[in-house]
């Protein structure tokens, strides 16, 4: 047993972190939120070049093979930088299409997903709720209902999310692409991938919130000393680190279970989703409190991270739904 990321995986994280760190993701989020996807699309292309989307596409469709551990590594970095767009939906849809055998839709979409040429949204109402993320921007919107995979032609009016980077709408005008038990089985795997990548995103988001808040607490002075020297502040921040440190191995273990297609994968992805989602949310609440009134403003870039935490906590499996899965017989 070596339950640690290997050198290549760590280097991949560092490279992605470097790429994102120099990408002004806060500015990209603000553009995305205001309806200008240009900078987000440009960043998407760079992420594809770095291999992010290929991690969910089988090799015969010009991807790198479905690699859940590497996906978890990548999504932790994407979350750390709060990258906007249907990231989870695109990789989840890719794993769904990849499991449909030689269906034409796989050949049509997977190479484009791997190369970054297609942003794809996905709605599985039973798990993700009625909305598709960023459907107005996506090149394709897939919908899974029962044992049918559908392609949506249009989407309904935009519903604003509490996370301004998340543009929600209902898929409409759908046509059936394929139906049958293959779809149902593939969709089960796909929702697990969505839960895992959302959990990884939450983990990275929480880390960024903690880092930003620790830095602020160390430099902000009141009563003549740094507020980070007060126990009440320290202990809150210590609790956030605790939650994140114990969520991380759950995320990695869930990725290994998915990679092995283990029977425990569903339960493990649900456990990871609860722990990482709650940890990121706790990080956001602490970030807000420690930043004081400043944290409550939309001008503060960190507030973009604060608002995303709540949305990710519920996306692709609410905490209650995931806790129920953890105990499913």
């Amino acid at each position, binding site marked *: 047993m070596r339950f640690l990321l290997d050198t290549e995986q760590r280097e991949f994280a560092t490279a992605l972190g470097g790429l994102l760190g120099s990408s002004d993701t806060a500015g990209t989020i603000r553009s995305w939120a205001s309806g200008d996807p240009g900078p987000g699309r440009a960043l998407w292309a760079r992420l594809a070049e770095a291999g992010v989307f290929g991690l969910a596409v089988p090799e015969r469709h010009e991807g790198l093979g479905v690699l859940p551990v590497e996906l978890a590594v990548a999504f932790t970095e994407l979350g750390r930088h709060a990258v906007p767009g249907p990231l989870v939906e695109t990789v989840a849809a890719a794993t769904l299409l990849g499991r449909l055998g030689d269906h034409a839709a796989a050949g049509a979409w997977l190479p484009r997903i791997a190369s970054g040429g297609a942003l794809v949204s996905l709605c599985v109402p039973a798990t993700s709720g009625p909305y598709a993320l960023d459907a107005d921007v996506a090149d394709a919107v897939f919908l899974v209902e029962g044992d049918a995979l559908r392609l949506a032609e249009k989407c309904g009016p935009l519903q604003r999310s509490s996370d301004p980077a998340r543009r929600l709408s209902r898929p409409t005008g759908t046509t059936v692409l394929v139906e049958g038990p293959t779809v149902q089985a593939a969709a089960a795997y796909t929702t697990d991938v969505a839960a895992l990548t959302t959990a990884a995103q939450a983990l990275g988001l929480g880390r960024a919130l903690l880092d930003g808040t620790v830095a602020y607490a160390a430099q902000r002075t009141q009563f003549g000393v740094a507020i980070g020297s007060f126990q009440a502040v*320290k202990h809150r921040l210590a609790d956030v680190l605790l939650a994140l440190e114990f969520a991380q*191995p759950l995320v990695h273990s869930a990725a290994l279970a998915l990679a092995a297609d283990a029977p425990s994968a569903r339960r493990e992805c649900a456990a990871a989703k609860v722990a990482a989602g709650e940890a990121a949310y706790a990080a956001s609440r602490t970030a807000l409190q420690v930043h004081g009134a400043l944290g409550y403003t939309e001008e503060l870039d960190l507030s973009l991270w604060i608002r995303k935490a709540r949305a990710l906590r519920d996306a692709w499996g609410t905490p209650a739904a995931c806790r129920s899965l953890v105990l499913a017989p």
Partner: protein
Amino acid sequence: MDLDFTTDENTFRAEARAWLAAHVPSTRLHSLETAEGFEAHREWERALFADRWSVVSWPEEYGGRGASLLQWLIFEEEYYAADAPGRVSQNGINLLAPTLFEHGTPEQCARVLPPMARGEVIWAQAWSEPEAGSDLARLRSTARRTEGGWRLSGQKTWSSRAAFADRAFGLFRSDPAADKPHRGLTYLMFPLDAPGVTVRPIGRLDGKPAFAELFLDDVFVPDEDVIGTPGEGWRVAMSTAGSERGLTLRSPGRFTAAADRLTRLWRDEADPADTALRDRVADAVIGARAYQLFGYTSASRIAAGESIGAESSLNKVFWSELDIALHETALDLLGPYGELADDAEDAPEDGGWAEGYTFSLAGPIYAGTNEIQRDIIAERLLGLPKGRR
């Protein structure tokens, strides 16, 4: 990255499981915090030792199996899954022994470790004093140089297991003129039946004498019972505190086994419509799994040559709070039976949940309070500035 066990590790697991299945007493022993239970648990230690299961991580020459940290984790998973008795020798085998391996002489190891492994000598710890708890370095009990050894005087308190134990280990001030509180301390071992030692048991929350006060009046200790260099006791003791807070004090296997028992209790007893309770059971299961995986990470890091430092504070806060939450959930599932004491005739599961709950309540206090641990996490892991405690 993987979570795979080797063939050897799987064989080791199977061997431990088979032995435990054949030897774990079918009825629960009395609480080890009672005179009768203490002796029953001592007998159990003897049985463990007879087949080399009492100190698996020690070298073979002292009765162990030279088990790796991962093998130890495996043993503990099997041990608690088999619902085996609590370890009355824990203070010795998990706290004193690591200190002896690191700082003891070969003579001390040869003399002290084998009877400890056999359960013949049960050890108590003697750290805290009435005026020195979290601020342990302020301790005032003294060790005064004398012909061939030292004379101990003063008062120790909250000494776990001391009501029935045979010997104790702790820190004493040997150089009152030292310039800093944590200098001039010496680490010593002493018999609890030596002339000048008075043991006054203290009833814990449920009345059982789980710890004691020790009054020391000019107690002679020979030089051979000093561990490390006189005056260097703080450094010696901190190596023990590190392992105490780290993995070895409360193994993940305890919590994965308890979470499994909790899940069974929930399936048997719970109203399926009570989702609030369901969520707490799920959180206990998730927490136990997280702690287990965190342990695998630590074992992997140590195997890769890294050392675990202040991270052990994360460990201590996590398991101690998980333990309480898990037991509170069990008591809530038991409804009107949840308040029954462990020795009440009607107590569910032979009082296991009640005893476990009482035991769990001490977790955030001993081995460095969780407040101190959170200070360590904030200062050493997050790099926040030191401040007033």
